[in-house]
């Protein structure tokens, strides 16, 4: 839908839209409605039945939720290639495409997200007569699921995160997601991409300096942990952010907390890798080497801890050990890995969103309940 080009609907489309509005408002009996229930087309009749059933269960926002999911599906339609990314550009409705760390195009940002935000603002929580999206857990789940999908597929948007924070400023998941977004902004892909694009002087982008983004990430991870103190992944990521902010002592505390909190293999690998870097920064080389070895034991094909070990040995003057470690890296029995699955470091900036698809699926569940026949 281009700017300045109002949508043009055919007569039949306009009529169906009016009927749909009547279904949403339970106002089919109104004189303003072009059809009565008995005249409805089969699909609209089915929708009317489902909306009625949902209303009987206490949810007056069934059709609105469906509309949100429809817009979500449309917005998600275009998949970028691996190692490509896009990020929104202020609030002007444009989005940059990024390939290999360089800006590669500019296009209009999907209007579907904006429509979805408008619909979400009208959602009433179950049992409530008036719109109050801040008290609706489905709305919260929608923001978390779609936000994670954006991070997993590199369709970044601070507009989206700002909408989520507007409605759920004290939600741990939303804070965590926003912290991860800052972390992504601080990363090399977007820091480089924003430098590669010609913008009119003074034009704001959503991406600040690396240091500011890291500080933003620290604040939001801390807020998430204040709400949910035993969150392994938040400790892990806060630890890495603090390491990048040259606060090795605090980073060590967070990463140790992550290791004590029963991390899964990927989280443990990353925590040991990052803690190794912390110890290296502190000059504790034996401890660093030990941590890198532990990370290697968890993911024997991973490249990053072996490079870390080799470089550490070289730094310590042990060239033979450094070379032997590098040789072991090249000799390891690992097939080419175009998808980057063998080393969790490569997917660090998206792994927090690994359950995005499952969360999106879960949004449909309450809407799939069959009406009584």
């Amino acid at each position, binding site marked *: 839908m281009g700017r300045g080009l109002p949508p043009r609907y055919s007569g039949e489309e306009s009529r169906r839209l009016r009927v749909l509005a009547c279904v949403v408002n339970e106002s089919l009996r109104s004189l303003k409605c072009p059809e009565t229930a008995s005249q409805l087309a089969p699909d609209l009749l089915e929708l009317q039945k489902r909306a009625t059933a949902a209303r009987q269960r206490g949810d007056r926002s069934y059709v609105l939720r469906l509309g949100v999911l429809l817009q979500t599906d449309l917005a998600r339609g275009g998949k970028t290639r691996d190692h490509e990314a896009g990020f929104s550009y202020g609030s002007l409705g444009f989005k940059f495409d990024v390939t290999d760390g*360089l800006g590669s195009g500019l296009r209009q940002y999907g209007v579907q997200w904006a429509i979805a935000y408008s619909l979400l603002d009208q959602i009433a929580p179950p049992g409530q007569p008036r719109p109050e999206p801040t008290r609706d857990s489905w709305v919260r789940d929608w923001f978390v699921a779609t936000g994670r999908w954006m991070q997993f597929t590199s369709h970044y948007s601070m507009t989206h995160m700002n909408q989520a924070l507007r409605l759920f400023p004290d939600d741990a998941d939303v804070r965590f997601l926003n912290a991860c977004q800052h972390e992504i902004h601080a990363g090399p892909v977007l820091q480089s991409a924003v430098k590669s694009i010609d913008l009119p002087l003074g034009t704001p982008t959503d991406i600040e300096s690396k240091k500011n983004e890291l500080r933003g990430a620290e604040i939001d991870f801390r807020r998430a942990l204040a709400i949910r103190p035993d969150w392994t992944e938040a400790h892990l990521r806060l630890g890495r952010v603090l390491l990048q902010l040259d606060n090795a002592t605090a980073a060590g505390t967070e990463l140790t907390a992550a290791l004590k909190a029963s991390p899964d293999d990927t989280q443990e690998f990353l925590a040991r890798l990052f803690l190794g870097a912390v110890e290296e920064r502190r000059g504790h080389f034996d401890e660093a080497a030990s941590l890198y070895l532990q990370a290697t034991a968890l993911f024997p094909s991973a490249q990053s801890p072996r490079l870390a070990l080799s470089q550490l040995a070289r*730094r310590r003057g042990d060239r033979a050990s450094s*070379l032997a470690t590098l040789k072991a890296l090249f000799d390891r029995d690992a097939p080419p890995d175009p998808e980057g699955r063998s080393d969790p470091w490569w997917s660090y900036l998206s792994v927090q969103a690994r359950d995005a698809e499952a969360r999106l699926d879960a949004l449909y569940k309450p809407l799939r309940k069959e009406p009584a026949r």
Partner: protein
Amino acid sequence: MIRRLLGTFVTASALAAAGFASAQDPVFKSVLEAVRVDALVTSGNDLIKGLTARDFEVLDNGVSQRVDLVSFEELPLNVILAFDMSDSVAGERLEQLQRASGALLSGLRSGDQSALITFSHEVRLAAPLSADVDRVKSALGDTAGSGGTSLGDGVYAGVMLGETDPGRALVIVFSDGVDTTSWLTSEQVLDTAKRSDAVIYGVSVRSKVKPELLNELAAATGGRLQEIERIQNLSKVFVDILNEFRTRYLISYTPAGVARDGWHRLEVRVKGRRATVHARPGYLAGS
């Protein structure tokens, strides 16, 4: 820079970690702790040839050193190609890269060796260091562009590969993007380069983002960064780099009157005549 081999008997298990080929019988090398500096000497646009040890003045942290050895076009070369094989290289760039590498490899002489490191997010030793040029050519033919860019990790591997053999290491790094997936930081890669003898020449496709790491690596090792406008010029760029490297002097001296560890500032001059010396600005000792 510096090959610090004093008292270090390098077994071929280390040296055959060397080239990262399979281990051969142990070969023992005993080399005095010497500092090696690759230097290009010019006057205007002309190379100055025929200089001897007595023509050079070397200051190590400001202390004049006795130059022991100067060789010119004598030692064989170890040419290590470290190539970006990320998404952005796929297509015409890859074809040009393969063609340019072929031209460069054709310029190698008897005794020279070559190797190929490729990096996307993953760093791979596509062809170990050897005199078998066809092996590198064949490996180049098998390459394909995909994935992210671990530029720092790839350069690190290239520099270390240069340490597996006592020959003069020339590391030619080609990248058309920015580092997006390396584990090693720029500081760590630079630290390694400053401890190594390898000279790094960076070749990058010009864009709005300056290839800062490649620039720093080239400056720190006495090499050069070349940003090209058109990928079609790559063959000439590669061949020019090889020819330029061959004409460099290899100056050697045993440091005296200076600390054994830490950063050593280097100044290399030609006595008694106007000349520009292009060499690394220093080295990290203690490794």
